[in-house]
């Protein structure tokens, strides 16, 4: 999936864009076979 996203939407793989799988923020390589929702979170700016 990362390869496909990198080709179609490279901006989504910027390190400041977080990925949440089924409402859990993840990092690194994670199996997504049983995942029902993939969300891309834009760069954050709290505090």
């Amino acid at each position, binding site marked *: 999936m990362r390869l496909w996203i990198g080709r179609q939407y490279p901006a989504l793989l910027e390190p400041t864009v977080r990925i949440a799988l089924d409402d859990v923020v993840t990092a690194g390589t994670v199996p997504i076979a049983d995942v029902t929702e993939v969300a891309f*979170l834009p760069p*954050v*700016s709290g505090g």
Partner: protein
Amino acid sequence: MRFLSADPIDPAALLDTFTRASTGAGAIVSFTGVVRGGDGVSELWLDHHPGLTEQGIGEVDADARRRFAVDDLSIVHRIGSVAPGEPIVFVAAAATHRRAAFEAVDYAMDRLKTDVPLWKRETRADGTRWIEARPEDQADRARWEIET
């Protein structure tokens, strides 16, 4: 104590409550972030993701408690519309000694700025724009050698 508030927060009252509850502490450190006035911003809008934002703040809280010898930690963050001069975030730590309390608050603020799903949109006379964490914020975060 940690929560998101759509209403204005009162750092003095929060610190008073926190201090009264930290009976065994020898050091209490607090930080209040305020929307800067005088630089043309008329409103700051704090957006969040119900669920993920609370989860993110919870992780910051747990990580800070694990890394530093603090007895208690408080994180309160505004959401919604915030005016210049109003508090946007309150963080406090109680510890036996001051160093742990200072570092826990510093660490929590760096993580809030770079890790927690919160988004700022500022309004100026010429329109609105979303704000990203600055390179300085990322450099501050990198001091703690946090794995992503």
